[in-house]
């Protein structure tokens, strides 16, 4: 139940009997083995109808739609297999209680800064001098405790992220100059890659949350409503350094993506179809990669770590047991 299917070509996706098939523009047909599917990702111009949507709903499969230049366009979520009034009540109660909300939000930021730091420290221990960045990250991590409200906490996180992004120009090859984060539209290759990578992590987190009875719209660090599934923004932040950024570093440094995989136009700089496919495949491989989990005492995939993070939050909300964010331990 955890395969993602990415459709890059243009065409039509439809239900036939008990399966789903993709009919490409050139008429070629391809069947998607959906028994193990968690989600379908549409990257091209793909038509579908209500018959398909009801089928996905029955099968409990999500469909994430990626538009042309604003990458993540939205999701078609199946009615949740799990609904639990009490989970949602607990979620909302925690949001409504400023202290409780702040406590949870702090944990998200703690996990996120810890995982940024793990990346910086990796390169620091190899052939870079990132003393300053590491100091700033430590300093920001220490400042989490002092934040008295969520806005202030956001500021702490933003400071950490700036220091973190400042290391990218040193980590990445020269032709991938980054010079800080830009959005809407991304103005260079690296920014465009980060946007795309983050939206894939976000969509995977949406799927992971969906597998629990958590309501993806009730969030703690981000304001509910900031995006439709704002809880996904909260949790995805913890994972971006581990999933998105690691894959970016690897692909660019090994020259598996070059500047030819991007194109610039009036809308800024975007991945080409090939580039997008290359990146997506690499991210999927990473999601399938496993690490040994110390308390579960078995190997779990990175994708399952997303699911566990949702479980941990749910457990905290329902039992009052402490929520400890994923801090890269390997």
């Amino acid at each position, binding site marked *: 139940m955890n395969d993602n299917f990415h459709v890059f070509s243009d065409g039509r996706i439809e239900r036939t009997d008990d399966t789903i098939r993709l009919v490409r523009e050139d008429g070629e047909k391809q069947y998607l083995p959906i028994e193990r599917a968690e989600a379908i990702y549409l990257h091209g111009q793909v038509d579908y109808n209500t018959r398909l949507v009801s089928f996905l709903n029955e099968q*409990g499969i999500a469909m994430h739609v990626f538009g042309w230049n604003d990458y993540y366009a939205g999701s078609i979520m199946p009615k949740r297999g*799990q609904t*639990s009034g009490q989970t949602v009540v607990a979620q909302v109660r925690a949001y409504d209680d400023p202290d409780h909300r702040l406590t949870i939000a702090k944990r998200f930021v703690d996990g996120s800064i810890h995982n940024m730091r793990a990346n910086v420290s990796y390169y620091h221990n190899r052939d870079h001098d990132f003393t300053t960045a590491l100091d700033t990250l430590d300093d920001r991590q220490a400042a989490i405790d002092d934040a008295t409200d969520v806005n202030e906490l956001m500021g702490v996180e933003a400071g950490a992220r700036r220091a973190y992004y400042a290391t990218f120009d040193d980590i990445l090859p020269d032709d991938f100059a980054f010079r800080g984060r830009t959005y809407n539209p991304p103005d260079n290759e690296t920014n465009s890659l980060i946007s795309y990578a983050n939206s894939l992590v976000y969509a995977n987190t949406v799927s992971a949350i969906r597998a*629990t*009875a958590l309501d993806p719209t009730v969030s703690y660090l981000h304001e509910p409503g900031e995006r439709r599934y704002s809880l996904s923004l909260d949790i995805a932040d913890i994972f971006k350094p581990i999933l998105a950024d690691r894959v970016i570093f690897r692909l660019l440094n090994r020259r598996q993506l070059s500047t030819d995989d991007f194109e610039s136009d009036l809308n800024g700089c975007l991945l080409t179809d090939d580039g997008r496919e290359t990146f997506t495949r690499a991210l999927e491989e990473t999601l399938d990669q496993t690490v040994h989990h110390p*308390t579960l005492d078995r190997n779990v995939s990175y994708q399952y770590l997303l699911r566990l993070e949702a*479980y941990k939050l749910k*457990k905290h909300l329902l039992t009052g*047991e402490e929520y400890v964010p994923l801090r890269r331990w390997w």
Partner: protein
Amino acid sequence: MIDDTAGDGDDTAPSDDPVDRLLASARDESIEDDVHVTGVMMQYYEVCTRELWFDSRDIEIDRDNAAVARGTRVDDEAYSEKRRHVSIDGTIAIDVLDDGRVMEVKPSSALVDPAKLQLLYYLWYLKHVTGVDRDGVLAHPRERRREDVELTPENEEWVEDAIRGVVDVIERDSPPAPTEKPFCESCAYYDFCWSC
């Protein structure tokens, strides 16, 4: 101590003892008790009190969790002999054999005590609530073996202590901490408990 205080319909002051409360509400419909101790709860109590707490809150196991929940009726089909399913007060559901004994089927010998406690609870309930004395039989189909179970004074004490224990667990605000048990690995809450 449980025999005569409750259930006469008069105004005996409500006792705080969960056993008295249970009997009072079972004998007299007008007395409400929030806690309905079921046979399955007794079983959970013996297996894992944390699982009991989760179950009492309807904390559901998430979708497509591969772990198989421990079934209580797994081997039902193994017995073709005549028996009747009897439900009492909507609280306990028992299987009564033709000879009048109450039967409980257990899928595995690893969980004998939980099954025995559940069966003893039924016998205890029959005796104290409906005034019927019955013996029980615990059947292990896979081993083609049966065990007679009687409500001895020690067993009565076991049941009553367990009732108090069950009520204590489910009235807590947070669950008992997880402790590693041999059946954790096959428990549907495993990832929930141990992902930390």
